[in-house]
């Protein structure tokens, strides 16, 4: 078990390669660090002071051993800088690029050895590092003017890729959810996904973990950490690099068939680790699992005011392994006595273009006991759908305590309705299919 408190909640941080201006990466990170709930030591031999903080010529000159040192110097200088870290830092986060990702594996291996000898845990190289809004920690060299990061929340993001983590940060903010911890560990010379999973399993701020991976190093250790994390909170993995042609082994038929992605996917399923097939699904899973907790069952009821959108949702349920069970006769009778004869009393329940907002309440109350999860489709181009719907769905979810997702589209009040629903922790998705796939992430018995 790795304790990463010093990495995610450092009491003191050194920045090697700090700079005076936000024109430079070392200045952007220093500016970010001014918000840290802890002590910050800029290191740069050329300045006595940077952004109002006393600067130091080298890490050896710091008055204390820091929890975290951020290294932002050219790759060739990093080994020597790292040697100076012995006894002066617990974690060194190497932002610098120019290692294994460009073929300089020897230089990267040198870092690993120096880290082991110096007793310093390494993050990176070639990474953006850590964002922990609870602690004011932001090691990412992205100016606030370019990227507005999400605020505090319950989603942790663990990503091998820096570019993907930045896109996810933007997307998560737009999805009206917040983050607990974000970690981009880059080339993973030391710290990797498994270490972070172990830590997040015990992190009370984190309810759901989404993770972008290209490779996992030691597969057995990875799957063990993923399984243990998945036992305590939802972990959703997106594996990139699916198109590999299999391990070249002319002798063995099995070897030829064992493409690295096929093996990875099978093993995730063997240990019941959830996989997102693509970027959108990863994001949608984060949103759904951030808002609501997974529940048992797989019977789904779709309530719509547009036939086509309902059929699309039902089709996706079938693909996702969800059960669009027909309405029981007694429920049909109750709804039939409340609704006009032209409403569709099946599953989907079609409230048609002549819907009145209150009809959703009647339908939901009628099916509450029968189903495990609910898809609400609200197409707002008709006059009958009002903002009152947000309140109806919120009340229903409070009473039912079961997963509910929504698809809202067609303009008019759709933006306002989406905001109101998401404030009430009903995640809203831009297509019927995405709403259904998100619901599948909330239902545990989908197989």
């Amino acid at each position, binding site marked *: 078990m790795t304790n990463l408190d010093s990495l995610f909640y450092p009491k003191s941080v050194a920045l090697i390669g700090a700079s005076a201006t936000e024109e430079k990466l070392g200045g952007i990170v220093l500016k970010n660090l001014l918000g840290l709930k802890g002590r910050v030591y800029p290191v740069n031999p050329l300045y006595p002071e940077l952004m109002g903080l006393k600067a130091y010529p080298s890490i050896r000159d710091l008055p204390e051993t820091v929890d975290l040192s951020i290294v932002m110097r050219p790759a060739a200088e990093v080994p020597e800088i790292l040697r100076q870290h012995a006894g002066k830092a617990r974690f060194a986060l190497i932002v610098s690029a120019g290692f294994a990702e460009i073929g300089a594996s020897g230089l990267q291996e040198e870092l690993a050895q120096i880290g082991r000898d110096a007793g310093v845990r390494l993050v990176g190289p070639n990474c953006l590092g850590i964002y922990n809004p609870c602690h004011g920690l932001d090691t990412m060299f992205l100016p606030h003017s370019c990227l507005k990061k999400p605020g505090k929340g319950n989603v942790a993001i663990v990503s091998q890729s820096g570019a993907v983590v930045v896109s996810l940060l933007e997307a998560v903010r737009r999805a009206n959810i917040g983050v607990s911890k974000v970690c981009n560990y880059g080339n993973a010379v030391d710290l990797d996904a498994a270490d972070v999973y172990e830590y997040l399993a015990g992190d009370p701020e984190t309810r759901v973990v989404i993770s972008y991976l290209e490779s996992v190093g030691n597969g057995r250790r990875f799957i063990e950490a993923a399984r243990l994390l998945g036992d305590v909170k939802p972990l959703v993995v997106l594996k990139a690099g699916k198109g590999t042609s299999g391990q070249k082994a002319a002798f063995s038929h099995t070897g030829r068939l064992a493409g690295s992605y096929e093996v*990875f996917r099978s093993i995730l399923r063997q240990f019941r680790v959830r996989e997102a097939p693509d970027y959108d699904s990863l994001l949608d899973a984060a949103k759904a699992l951030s808002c609501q907790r997974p529940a048992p069952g797989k019977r789904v009821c779709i309530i719509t005011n547009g036939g086509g959108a309902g059929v699309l949702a039902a089709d996706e349920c079938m693909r996702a392994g969800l059960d669009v069970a027909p309405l029981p006769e007694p429920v049909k009778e109750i709804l039939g006595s409340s609704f006009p004869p032209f409403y569709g009393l099946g599953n989907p329940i079609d409230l048609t273009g002549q819907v009145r907002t209150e009809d959703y309440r009647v339908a939901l109350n009628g099916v509450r006991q029968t189903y495990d999860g609910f898809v609400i489709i609200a197409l707002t181009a008709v006059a009958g759908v009002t903002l009152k719907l947000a309140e109806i769905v919120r009340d229903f979810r409070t009473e039912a305590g079961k997963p509910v997702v929504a698809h809202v589209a067609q303009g008019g009040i759709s933006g306002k309705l989406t905001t109101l629903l998401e404030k009430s922790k009903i995640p809203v998705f831009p297509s019927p299919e995405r709403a259904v796939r998100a619901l599948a992430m909330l239902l545990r018995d989908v197989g």
Partner: protein
Amino acid sequence: MTIRDKVQDFLQSQEDREVFREHEVKEFLRGFGINTPRGMFVPSGTAIPSTVSLSYPLVAKVVSSGISSKSDVGGVRLGIGNGDELRSAVTELSLMENGEGVLVEEMARPGFEVIVGGTTDITFGPIVMFGLGGFFVELFRDVSFALAPVTREQAVWLVGETKGGKVLKGFRGKPPLDIDAIADIIVTVSEVMATGLIRTIDLNPVALYLSGALVLDAKMSRL
């Protein structure tokens, strides 16, 4: 004897061979209770024993650790119906390049063909594979993998992970095939792989019946 002991004994008997010969792999498998066709190995340059106790029809296959696909090089004779045919088949196959001998076996009755394999994955180490044989695997890559070793329950799960696994459970009124028998083979292959001493195992095909399973071809190599 533990599985590891059995594997180690086998490896010792193979001296410095990297890729093992079919009849020896099959004997090794029989040591775990896995069924293979009745047969005999005729080393190159030796005569077929006169007291052949096998029942016709027979199949004859060239045995060589240097040939990866026997049928591609014409190294297999099927439907051998009598002693004359057997002698000429064995003589021809004995003359093949790299041939070390000929394996003569009773021809198995037709079954549903599946594949059980094991390989050492670069990321995950020993893994076990199940797939449907014939065109299912060639065309659809309908295979599934699991970390080795697997339990019996996981082996049954692994079968169900393939699309074609449904066929085994009885499709369109056909009776179900012996999933227990194939699960036993999967468990054994996974346990052998999990010793970390073996690079690959290929049981392809395995003929699966309403009752029982028969490994028709078997390859194995050392890590």
